[in-house]
Each structure stands twice: as structure tokens, then as C-alpha cells.
């Protein structure tokens, strides 16, 4: 008896479920109800979820403020709605959620967080004609694809590499620089830019060496480097290699200043490198929060609403503001209409003055250089390009 009942219940349940999905799908076709949906994508689960949640909250804070203030576009008062999606920092998932947002007909996307997810997703947004502003993707390749819909409000690796190269020669007074990279897209990209900048500023690249992102023995390349006695050694890569590298460097009696990109600018680096890491100089895109034009104010608002800031929340906040600013100037939330206005942006944001170059990269590039002192990174110098 029970079994018979179950047999009947299951198809009905499945049918009900399907029809529910189907009908809600139908009714949820966004009508012109004065609500403008903006997508926000970041890893909300997994090991990078603390960064992802941070970005999402930054964007949400902007949306809430805009709604509270009341925005009029094309003569009509509008409301904004943030549609959050989780890409799990995974490129495959990123394309799936990107398609989902396109299907939901969002007017623009804030995201993604990682370069590896931003790049594949950007193709989907570009094909659908949706404006994408990434708050935190730094890989050069993102804006190099020629997608008119792709923007970012954070300095890219090329700008970072250039600043590092110039800093090595002009501020550290290095005549000779040795460069090592780990042959990943990030490491190689930033190391190539450093090399160009060193040469352009009148320094010499005396040795160019390579390792991999799974190596642990760097003594051979460091010995070769030592024979060229450089003033500065630059490493393009992440901390699991960067930290043992500096230890082996000091053991070989190589006293050169150690310089790195944002891959080394972590607390893990300080922990792993210990005493040998002291004095390491590493960059970070953007300004330190207390030096951002609207940093203090933003920090207070954000702390009150969501707690402490991880890193990129101010950039996500600015990305939303830039997008809505363009909509207001275009008098339309239609991506095709407001896209040209995004390109013409002149916006004074929390993180700085935002304007885009022809590729969609932010023009005024601020890079902060930090130096390892004890168990923290101290601001050494802020460089505004």
C-alpha cells in the first residue's frame, strides 16, 4: 500500500517541481519594472571565500546607498538590485554563472575576483553586450583581448611591473638586476614588465632565470645569479617559492635587495621567510586604505555594516558607482547605450580618481610598495602614475 502511494507521489512531486521552475522562470523575465539588476560574481565558497564575500559586500554597500539616496535615470526613479553569484574561483564555474547572469538579463556585472575566472567570463559578457567591471583582476591578458565591454578599476600587472622596475633602478639605485620567474601567467607577465622597465630606466638585467611553481631547490639558479653580483633580485611568483628562495639566497652569501610583486606581499611570506625575509620590498596594487581619498569614511561605513575589510571591497564599491554614474550620464540602463559612457568615465571614487584608457584599464595607477619589517609589511612608498 505504502509502496503504491510512493509510486504515485514521486512523479507528481517531480512534475510539480518542474512546473514550479518552469513557471517561475517565465514570470521572472525581468520586465521594465524600474528595477535595474547588476550582477556581482566572486568566490563565495571555498578557500578564497573571505575575499569573495568582501567584494560582494563592497558592491552591496554601494547598491544600498544608491537606493537610499534615490537615483533617476531617463526621468524615472529607479531601484537597483544586486544579483550575487558564486564562481568558486574556478574558471569553469565562472563561465556557467556568467551565462546565468546573461540569461537573467543583468545590466552590468561587477567581477570576477580572480584573473583566472575574469578572463573566460569576459568573453560571455562581451558576446552578450554586457558591461563588466572587475574590481580585482590584475592579469594583463584581461583587457588585452580587445573586448570593449571589459573594464577594471584596479591596476594591472603591467603597471605594477613597470613601477617595480623603475623603483629598483631609481629609488634603490640598482645598476644591475637579476630576474627570476616561475613561468606561470602571473609570474612571467610581471617579470617581463619589470625587465622592460629596468632597461628603460637605465639599469641592466644581468641575469634572467626561471624556476617552476613547485620547485624547492633554487641554489643552482642563485649561484648563477651570484656570479653576476646584482644589486637587486626580483622574483615574479608566489610565496611558497618566494620565501625559501630568499633563505637560500642569504645562505649563498648573496646580499642583494629582494624585490617581489603582490604574490610575495602576504603574511605567509613573512612567516615562511623569517629573519631572511627582513627588508624584502614587495608591491601591492592600489593605495593603502588610510591613504585612499575616501578610505576613512568608507572604512567606517563598511565596518559598521559588515565588519573589517579584507582587501578589495573599496574597489567593488567604486566599480558599482562607476557603472551607475555612466548609466546616469547616458540616461539609460541599457548596456548598449551606457557602454560608451563607461569608457568616458571621470569619477572621483573612494580608491582614487577613476578614468579608463582605450583598453579599459584604469589610468591613474597607484601602486604601494611595502617593506617587510618584523612580522608586518610597512608602507615604504606610494607611487601614483
Amino acid at each position, binding site marked *: 500500500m505504502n509502496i503504491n502511494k510512493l509510486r504515485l507521489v514521486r512523479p507528481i512531486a517531480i512534475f510539480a517541481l518542474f512546473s514550479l521552475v518552469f513557471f517561475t522562470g517565465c514570470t521572472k523575465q525581468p520586465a521594465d519594472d524600474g528595477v535595474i539588476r547588476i550582477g556581482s560574481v566572486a568566490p563565495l565558497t571555498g578557500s578564497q571565500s573571505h575575499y569573495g564575500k568582501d567584494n560582494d559586500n563592497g558592491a552591496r554597500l554601494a547598491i544600498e546607498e544608491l537606493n537610499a539616496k534615490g537615483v533617476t535615470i531617463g526621468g524615472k526613479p529607479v531601484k537597483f538590485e544586486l544579483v550575487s553569484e558564486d564562481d568558486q574561483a574556478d574558471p569553469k564555474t565562472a563561465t556557467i554563472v556568467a551565462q546565468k547572469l546573461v540569461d537573467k538579463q543583468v545590466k552590468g556585472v561587477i567581477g570576477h575576483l580572480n584573473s583566472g575566472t575574469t578572463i573566460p567570463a569576459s568573453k560571455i559578457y562581451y558576446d552578450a553586450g554586457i558591461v563588466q567591471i572587475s574590481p580585482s583582476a590584475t592579469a594583463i591578458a584581461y583587457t588585452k583581448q580587445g573586448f570593449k565591454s571589459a573594464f577594471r578599476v584596479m591596476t594591472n600587472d603591467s603597471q605594477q611591473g613597470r613601477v617595480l622596475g623603475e623603483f629598483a633602478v631609481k629609488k634603490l639605485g640598482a645598476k644591475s638586476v637579476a630576474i627570476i620567474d616561475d613561468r606561470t601567467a602571473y609570474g612571467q607577465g610581471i617579470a617581463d614588465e619589470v625587465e622592460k622597465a629596468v632597461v628603460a630606466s637605465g639599469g641592466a638585467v644581468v641575469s634572467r632565470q626561471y624556476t617552476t611553481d613547485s*620547485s*624547492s*631547490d633554487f*641554489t*643552482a639558479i642563485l649561484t648563477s645569479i651570484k656570479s653576476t653580483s646584482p644589486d637587486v633580485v626580483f622574483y615574479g611568483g608566489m610565496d611558497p617559492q618566494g*620565501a625559501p628562495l630568499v633563505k*637560500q639566497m642569504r*645562505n649563498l*652569501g648573496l646580499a642583494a635587495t629582494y624585490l617581489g610583486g603582490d604574490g610575495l606581499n602576504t603574511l605567509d611570506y613573512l612567516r615562511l621567510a623569517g629573519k631572511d625575509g627582513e627588508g624584502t620590498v614587495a608591491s601591492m596594487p592600489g593605495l593603502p586604505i588610510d591613504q585612499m581619498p575616501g578610505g576613512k569614511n568608507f572604512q567606517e561605513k563598511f565596518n559598521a555594516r559588515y565588519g573589517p575589510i579584507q582587501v578589495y571591497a573599496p574597489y567593488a564599491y567604486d566599480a558599482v558607482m562607476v557603472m551607475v554614474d555612466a548609466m546616469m550620464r547616458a540616461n539609460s540602463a541599457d548596456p548598449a547605450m551606457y557602454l560608451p559612457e563607461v569608457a568616458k568615465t571621470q569619477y572621483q571614487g573612494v580608491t582614487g580618481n577613476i578614468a579608463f584608457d582605450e583598453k579599459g584599464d584604469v589610468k591613474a595607477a597607484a601602486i604601494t610598495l611595502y617593506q617587510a619589517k618584523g612580522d608586518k609589511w610597512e608602507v615604504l612608498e606610494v607611487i601614483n602614475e
Partner: protein
Amino acid sequence: MNEFYQHLINGLVLGSIYALIALGYTMVYGIMQLINFAHGEVTMMGAMICLTVLNAMLGSSGMPHYLILLLGMGTAVIFCMALGFTIERVAYRPLRNAPRLAPLITAIGMSIVLQNIAMLMWGKRPLNFPDIIPIARFEILGAHITNVQIVIIVSAVVLMLGLWLLINRTRLGRAMRATSQSPALASLMGINPNTIISVTFMIGGGLAAVAGVMVNAYYGPAHYTMGFMLGLKAFTAAVLGGIGNVAGAMFGGILLGLIESLGAGYIHKLTFGFMGSDYQDVFAFMVLILILVFRPSGLFGERVGDRA
């Protein structure tokens, strides 16, 4: 010329570590004709255990540092000997009479299990060797060498000499040699091959633990995946020297270390900039392929193919 000496020293240190791990491969192969692919993970476990003991002792006890270091090393060695014994008991002994492929597959399975245990216990982040040894640097012929490097080379040599004496000058060693020649015949002479096999795994595990601690102390952070590459390199060293031959493993390890260091140091000049130092790992495996193609029995190998 200074550069050359420095490369030699680097190669010797790296090679000593490879040799210690290679011994574990070669002894097991010599007796059972089995490649124990979980051996790299035993090395990793050694590093992890020593690290844990050091961190625990440093915080709580006022013992002198060298005692703590010896204690950490000792714990790691004992643990890895037990681990080697357990691996053999669990993964290989039940398959003693199975086709040769079966224990090879359990070896790979064992390696995955150990990696995952380490990941669960110590997490995914790399772990540092605590600042316990004050590093002293010396200069010889313009090349730099630290006290850690000297200790690595000296203790590797001492351990290898000890092993050589054990195998060639003791009753146990004679039993091991007999078992490696013919387990069946050895058992007729009153030797229990199972005991000998267990002892072999324990000796190999102990040496691997020492090597793991050395890697952690000199090259940098310990990580749950560190055993994989180390194991492959050491296996290459064992094949290079002639797998199954103990002197061959020692020699092959040192030689491989030197090939890697000198290769990575000079490849850029040798190929006129065509290849860079990122090919460092490639040397080890190029050597492996060349040896397998042209001299499968290895440089010291006298054993013929019918048993392999």
C-alpha cells in the same frame, strides 16, 4: 671558477639527500623487486613529524636546542621506521604472491593515502622549519657553505658508511644479501624472509626520515606534496646507479645532484640562451630515459633482466 665550486657544493648537498632516499628504493627493490612508490611520502612524513616535535618542544621546554633537534630527528626516524614496517605489512605482504602489478598499484594507493593523511593533519599551507640552528656561513675557494650543508653531507656519508658496514659486515647484512639473491633458498638456511623484508623497509624509512628533515631544514617549507617530486628524483638516482645495488644508489644520488646543479647552472650558456634554468627538473628525467634506453641495468648494475 668560484661559481663552479659553488655549483659543486650545491650538487653535493642535493645529491646526498637524493642518495639517502634512493637507498630506500634500491634496498626494497633488491630484495623484493618492488618499486615502493610510497617511499617519497615516508620522506615527507619524516619532515612533518620532526617539525611537529620541534615546535612542541621549543615552546614548552627549556632544553638546549641541539638536544631538541636530536629528539625531533629521533622521533621522526622511529616514526618512519614504524611507518615503513606498517606500509609493508598492510600494502605489500598480503600481495606477496600476487602478480607483480598488484603491489605496484597498492604502492601508488599508499602514496595517495599518506599524502591525504598529511594534508588532513598538517593542512595545506607550507610549514617552516623552526629557527633552531644558528646558521654559520663559511667560505671555501670563494664558494659559500653553511653549517647546515656541512652537517647534511657529513651525516649522509656517515649513514651510508654505516649501512655499507651493516650489509657487508654483519649477520643481518648477510641475511639481507642472501634473501635478495633468493628468498626461497635463504629460508632453507633458517632466515625468515618476512623479517628481513620488514627490516629493509624499516631501514629505508629511517633514512628517508633523515632526508626529509634535511630537505625541510635546508631547502625550505615542508608541504604535504613535497614527497612526490623527491621520490621521483630519488627513484631516478636509484635507476641511474643500478636499481637493487646499494653502492649504485649512493653514487647515483650524488651524481644526479651534481648533474642537476651544474645543468641548471650552465644550460643557459651551453644552449646559447635557447633553454633556461626552468629545465632543471628535466635533467633528472632525461637521465632516467637515457639510462633506461642505453643501460637499463644502471651504471653499477650487474643484475640481469630476468629478475626485473
